[in-house]
């Protein structure tokens, strides 16, 4: 796939218009997971718009973003940074061999209190 095609797909998948961003940084000012991110929410918006997708595909932030939607809620321009992160994350986990969690590993990390909901959401977030 052409790179430009890939960027277009990711943008479409995000359903948000990164061009509307006015670079105020409020998303990153609000983000509760900021400290655990290498690429910050506002940078996702900027990179996707500039087409610098490779950096994003390798970002650790894809899996530390909590999808808490605080950035989306507060953006003054109606941009959804979390949706861009999600769109890139989908791009990654849909690739061959990119599943982040294997079912057979589960017993080790599960304690008896863990709710199903957590497991399901984790699988949805990390695997295709």
């Amino acid at each position, binding site marked *: 796939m052409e790179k430009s095609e890939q960027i277009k797909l990711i943008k*479409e*998948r*995000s*359903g948000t218009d990164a061009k509307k961003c006015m670079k105020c940084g409020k998303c990153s000012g609000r983000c*509760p*997971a900021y400290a*655990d991110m290498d690429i910050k929410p506002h940078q996702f918006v900027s990179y996707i718009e500039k087409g610098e997708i490779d950096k994003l595909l390798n970002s650790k932030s894809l*899996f*530390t973003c*909590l*999808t*808490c*939607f*605080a950035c*989306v*809620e507060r953006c003054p321009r109606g941009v959804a940074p*979390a*949706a861009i992160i*999600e*769109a890139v994350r*989908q791009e990654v986990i849909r690739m061959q061999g990119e599943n*982040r*969690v294997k079912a057979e590993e589960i017993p080790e*990390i599960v*304690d008896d*209190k*863990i*709710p*199903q*909901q*957590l*497991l*399901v*959401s*984790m699988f*949805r*977030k*990390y695997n295709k």
Partner: protein
Amino acid sequence: MKFSYYPGCTLKTKAKELDIYGRKSLEALGVDFEEIKEWQCCGAVYPVAKDEVATKLSAVRTLAQAKEEDGKLLTLCSACHNVLKRVNEDMKSDDNMRLKANNYLALEEAYNGETDVIHYLELLRDYVGFDKLKEKVVKPLTGKKIGAYYGCLLLRPNSVLAFDNPENPSIIENFIKAIGATPVVYAMRNECCGAYVSVTHKEIAEKKSANVINSAKDAGAEMLVTACPLCMYNLTENGKGAMEVKYFTELLAEALGVKE
């Protein structure tokens, strides 16, 4: 009007309290409800990506089933509520999603988002009324200082959930008042607990939970209430038991005098 009661997977296993006390309280309040027929898992997390259709179908099935009943789908778990409400909105306003979902499911009658998705707390506020609830309380939890924990899923995105003011909510505080306890407002009540990263990045979840608990503690809370099993897990397990956390339905049942 009969509410279609949607328990969701976790309420049948790890979050039984949320379910059992929820039902008992509804009975005590005289709300007409019945567990929705043939319910399926909601999907646990709303698929944000626009090209995901299949992952939303189980939610659509539940919504369509509720439409066949009285069209009022009652949710308890914040995550289920978030998923169902947002998928419902997609079925209302996203032509692509509606077309694909209806084509795929081939229901007898097309589903176009007709069902109302109502959270248990919304039911208490809008259908029962906190004033009415207050009258029905037999064992008020007088003197208990309780912090409301909203988290993310009930509040955001507000454009779809329209649950309460996303930065300064009051519904759970009003609920706490109605059952006779004292609400404690603290800054981090609408911050994330750590959510699903709990499994792979336990340290982050611990940090997030501690942040919430410390904020509540500083404000003078003795206990937190939540509507979400995932939050419950993070706040108790990753919060290392620093603060007692209960489901709101448990306190409700207690106040209504139907907790055992």
